[in-house]
């Protein structure tokens, strides 16, 4: 019967995807198997890799004169988005990364410029082994929440792990430098 066949094939696809995610997750755990880093063409001089777009923490800590205007207070996140973030935490705790991802995507549709939500989704993507998305989302979070150092620390840790997962040892080392710098600054 077609339906059953269809169901089976679909399950297989999902099973395959799950297997791939698990595999990647294990790779992450082992931090050993290098993977090619897809994405932005490297040879462009003008279109720079996203990390170059990020404020370097040095600048944040020692603002160049003249001092930039004080950061505008971030708009309070809608309670709805906070509720979803809390639900996603529960889903992560229960090991349901798929559901956590769905809830954070929904939260981001409500508060698309919320740096904390981007960082949470980056963390979920990292756990799912989607390293490139994890890296970009953590960078987006840094871009949006440049004043929050705790958040910046969490993001640089995600970036380091994601680059490690993609086999970008050099990039991971640079990210770890930022992690240490922030750790020192935060005491």
């Amino acid at each position: 019967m077609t339906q059953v066949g269809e169901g089976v094939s679909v399950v297989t696809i999902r099973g395959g995807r799950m297997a791939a995610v698990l595999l990647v997750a294990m790779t992450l755990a082992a931090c050993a198997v290098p993977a090619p880093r897809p994405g932005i063409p490297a040879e462009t001089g003008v279109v720079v890799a996203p990390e170059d777009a990020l404020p370097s923490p040095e600048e944040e800590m020692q603002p160049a004169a003249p001092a930039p205007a004080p950061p505008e207070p971030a708009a309070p996140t809608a309670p709805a988005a906070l509720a979803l973030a809390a639900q996603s935490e529960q889903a992560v705790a229960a090991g349901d990364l798929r559901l956590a991802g769905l809830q954070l995507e929904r939260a981001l549709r409500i508060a698309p410029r919320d740096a904390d939500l981007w960082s949470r989704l980056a963390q979920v993507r990292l756990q799912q082994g989607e390293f490139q998305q994890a890296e970009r989302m953590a960078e987006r979070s840094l871009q949006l929440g440049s004043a929050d150092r705790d958040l910046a620390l969490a993001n640089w840790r995600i970036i380091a792990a994601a680059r490690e997962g993609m086999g970008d040892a050099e990039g991971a080392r640079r990210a770890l430098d930022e992690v240490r710098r922030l750790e020192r600054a935060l005491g």
Partner: protein
Amino acid sequence: MPRRRKPSRPRSRIGRALAAGAWFAIGLLLVAVGVGVLHVQQMDREIRERFEGKRWALPARVFARPLELYVGRSLTPELLRLELEALNYHEGDARPGQFRIRGNEASLHTRPFVFSDGPEPARSVQIRFSHGVITDLRDPRGSVDLMRVEPMLIGSIYPTHGEDRVLVNLKEVPPGLVGALLATEDRRFLAHRGVDPMGILRAAWANLRAGRTVQGGSTLTQQLVKNFYLTHEQSLRRKINEAVMAVLLEYRYSKEEILEAYLNEVFLGQSGDRAIHGFGLAAEFYFQRRLHELELDQLALLVGLARGASYYDPRRFPERALARRNGVLERMLREGLATPDEIETAIAQPLGVTPRVPRGEGQFPAFLDLVRRQLRAEYHDEDLRSEGLRIFTTLDPGIQLTLEKQLTEGIAELLQARGIRDPLQAAAVVTDPLAGEVLALIGDSNPRFPGFNRAVEARRPVGSLIKPFVYLAALSDPERYTLATLLDDSPLTLQLPHGEPWSPQNFNREFHGQVTVWEALVQSYNVATVRLSQQIGVAQVIRLLQTLGLERTPAALPSLALGALDLSPLEVATLYQALANGGYATRSRAIRDVLDAENRELSHYSLELRGAVPDGAVRLVNQALHDVTTQGTGRQISQRMPGRVVAGKTGTSSDFRDSWFAGFDDRFLMVVWLGLDDNRPIGLTGGAGAVPIWVRSMAAFPGGSLNFGHHPEIQVRQVDRISGLRADTDACPDRIELPFWRDSVPRIRADCDLGAVGLEHGAGNWLERWRR
């Protein structure tokens, strides 16, 4: 012996003949029984296949995005009404599917629905609005953080034979329906075994007395068999087959199973190629309600249709349908299925059928076309038509309906004001650039017309829409280019690789000498832009476009910098999304999830950040694009939307063949294209044609303003507009405020500014101004 012989002779003759005949008859009987058994077995197999296999080919259902409600959401009572009416919600405050809006307050009773991340229960909530925002949301138990309304069904992908149905479960069917059905069609349903000889006799007697067919003798089971094998052949052979299959069906399956199958199978209406099967869909088709929400009179009408949905079609033959319905109600009274009061009330009701076939289905042809295109990449057509998939899309019905209204009115206004007689065509895309979701799509100047989808299929020269990307490529290198860098807008002739020399012209056929990058982009100067693209290399611009989502490699010709590149409105939207999204490219998704009939996830198209460009450089470009809307080619925007900070760019192809505008605010990005299908000039610039439609649409969406606030790597400084040099004092008469990225503020001060230092309060200051 002779006695023995005597009879033996005839016996041997007749007897032999008899014996042969008997054997023959037995043989024949055996064969007949054999064939009969085989035939019955065959029928049995068919029945079982039909019943136990995939019983029905279920169309894929395509849903809009659900309306999310939470405190702080931008929503007006008007937009809420628009959305709810599109969902066929009715005024009322008692049942799911009802709402009431009074001023800045609304009450709403939603229906339950299952989404990819779990079920959403039915809720009854009170909503309060203030200044276009939800300020309070609560149900009887207290405040509600977040909820969503069931999504609007925007289309179905039907099986090839056109059968459509919404499956119902026997448990959820109102008892009144079953009662009415049995009373009318098969009173002895629970007692008979598939065929009802008493019923046949009674029907025959009634028909004989009446002299015509007034009653059918077939049981529900027989009718189900008839519906399963839709042949309209009236023959004894078919009748016998039908009876045998009915008996087999009853032998194999329970009454409940048979009844449920009947409720889902019976033919109850027709709309074009689409055949309405089952009571679940019929309830929506005639009343735009769920089956369990129907009243007694409405149930009786549907039951009445089972006997002849075309003959009693309530939209075409309302009187006939009314008489039929009341007949069913009277039968219910006789059978004691309802009280005389209930029946009296029901009979007094009008038919209550919505005059038109429900909208929604095929209401948004361009968007549905985009959904099909994106589905086709992953799903077989046959699965879409038969597996009952549920497809959750990104369409925002409120935005789509608003866009349709504004576009239609805007075009009518334009045709009248400009005396245009040509068949002006249009396409428009609205996206959520932060999520990379397509919210609304129009592919024809008549948004309901399901033809050529220009928003996706029509690739037209984009003209100056390309320029922001030329400038973004340059400004990504802040050591070489800032908004204050001077460009040369004097006559230029380039030698093309294989042909004539090319001398780009400005729109006004004038040259402007030395101009700042800012001025060249805001005023859309062609010659300066071509020079800039030559300096950075056209290949660099192409690489940038590809990083931002262009999926082709156009030839690296100098004219690319002026938009000699054919793009569809959707492709333009994808490129501009990166500008509206801090430099991160996103896909333009039309689909969020695909679930199977059991609500298992088959596909999830997740939020994805693609290639990125530095957001500092994007910020510079966006400043210029904002200034386009206040003092450049789109300056009418700031006049028509005072107080809103938006950004965008006009585009006009050569000889005024294409009129474009692409722009965004903090939540919405919209691209408009106007032109003629045969590519003749239409005589509209981007500013004259596309801008008025863009601005009236964006003004009607619940968007806000772009935030050009603090950025750790951006410094804002005043410069002299002419020279692009620092001008800190107001001694310079013509100053502009520009953002600079990564310590790229000009170090040299303008003459006027320097002159002002010594003559701060003297006459020289005035002299200086005069000279400038």
